[in-house]
């Protein structure tokens, strides 16, 4: 679900015996358009962007939040606070599966108390990461509201969680992988493999 942007070619190289078809569902232009529209929707739902704060969930949520932050700064005429919140230590599946992932450092340069928090993801899938992120945000204060923005919603929810601002709905098979990565040209794209 969360995916680290990979070096170009790493994922698309077909392995012998296990060819994985790879299709681009959102290219750099598509991402730019979608994020701009999402920023406008966020501004509309949060009048004046008052007390608005973006909270990116690494790794994939970080570049998306940076795009939203640029657009929102233009719309609001000022910078919107941006935090990075690693949710590894809040997940319900981290203990008990094989190798434990190394958590990334959280940077929350503001209190969430009274804020209108928008959690930012690249892809929302089962909803478990978002669930963990909601718990994590509450440790930084009691927000007035929590909303969710995701570049892609691919369905298959396992928890009653709904995305407020979606870049694109992409129907997928459960076994497929959807990830935000950098293309050979260094631009972001969303691919399904």
């Amino acid at each position: 679900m969360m995916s680290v942007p990979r070096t170009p070619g790493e994922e698309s190289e077909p392995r012998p015996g296990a060819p994985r078809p790879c299709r681009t569902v959102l290219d750099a232009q598509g991402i730019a358009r979608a994020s701009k529209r999402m920023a406008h929707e966020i501004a509309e739902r949060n009048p004046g962007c008052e007390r608005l704060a973006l909270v990116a969930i690494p790794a994939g949520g970080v570049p998306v939040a940076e795009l939203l932050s640029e657009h929102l700064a233009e719309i609001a005429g000022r910078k919107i606070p941006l935090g990075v919140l690693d949710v590894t230590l809040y997940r319900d599946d981290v203990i008990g599966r094989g190798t434990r992932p190394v958590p990334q450092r959280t940077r929350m340069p503001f209190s969430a108390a009274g804020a209108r928090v928008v959690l930012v993801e690249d892809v929302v899938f089962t909803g478990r990461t978002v669930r963990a992120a909601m718990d994590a945000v509450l440790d930084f204060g009691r927000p007035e509201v929590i909303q969710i923005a995701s570049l892609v919603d691919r369905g298959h929810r396992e928890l009653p969680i709904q995305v407020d601002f979606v870049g694109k709905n992409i129907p997928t098979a459960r076994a497929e992988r959807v990830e935000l990565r950098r293309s050979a040209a260094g631009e972001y794209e969303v691919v399904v493999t």
Partner: protein
Amino acid sequence: MRHLLGIEDLSREEVVRLLDTAEAMLEISQREIKRVPTLRGRTVINLFLEPSTRTRVSFEIAAKRLSADAVNVSAAGSSLSKAETLADMARNLAAMNADVLVVRDRTAGVPQMLAERVRVPVINAGDGAHEHPTQGLLDAFTVRQALGGIEGRSIAIVGDIAHSRVARSDVHVFTKLGAEVRLAGPPTMIPVGIEQLGVKPCSSLDEALDGADVVCMLRIQQERLEGALFPGVREYARCWGLTRARLARARPDAIVLHPGPINRGVEIASDVADSEPSRILDQVTNGVAVRMAALYLLTGADS
């Protein structure tokens, strides 16, 4: 990685993984609400059979910040005084469904022995003069934090090398991470053949300090010294104690570490311990983060 018994057994990648995890853990201790739910419902048993305040409290706080239940057992008042063997006691503690056992003992090899006999992961919190892996890791973490990296740095470790488990873990951690390690201390306290570990023995404090990036002072452990290995405290301080004047031989931005508890005026002058280059209290803060990392990576790990 199933147990954490010594730095010597770890690969460079495992050391880096522990240090990177500790970065994230450090941030948790800086929050207003210093607790994450990761190890909720897990039980950490701290079996401390040798007196300790700092390390025991550090492990207890680390366990609690990860929401684990921490149970402390000390030698005094335990059934060891009823002649129960250590292995039987550990088996009984493990039978209460502990998820990790943290062990400190005055005898080298006890954590290893228990790891072979119980089904839970074991973390060595210091065994005799063998190793103190979490101290080595927190020292490396503190150097990385202060200087931005360890590779190519010169690290002087000064004091009773022969009796120090901290020195042993430090030597392993710093050489694994590509530092140049120098050792200095009275000749009776430098083990013969130590250069086989890839370190450089120095014959004087000044030689060890010359151009060093990091100075690790070791505590004179009077409780481990049997017989007269050195002529006396004053003589020791004169030859091997770190003063401001001597520290001037190190690099201008050099930092000073000490595993504590410090003997002011013996191995380290009071004004040096409280000076700007001293990172002694950062080490204590970082110790909690490193132990959280070890507990996170090991608790409930599959056999």
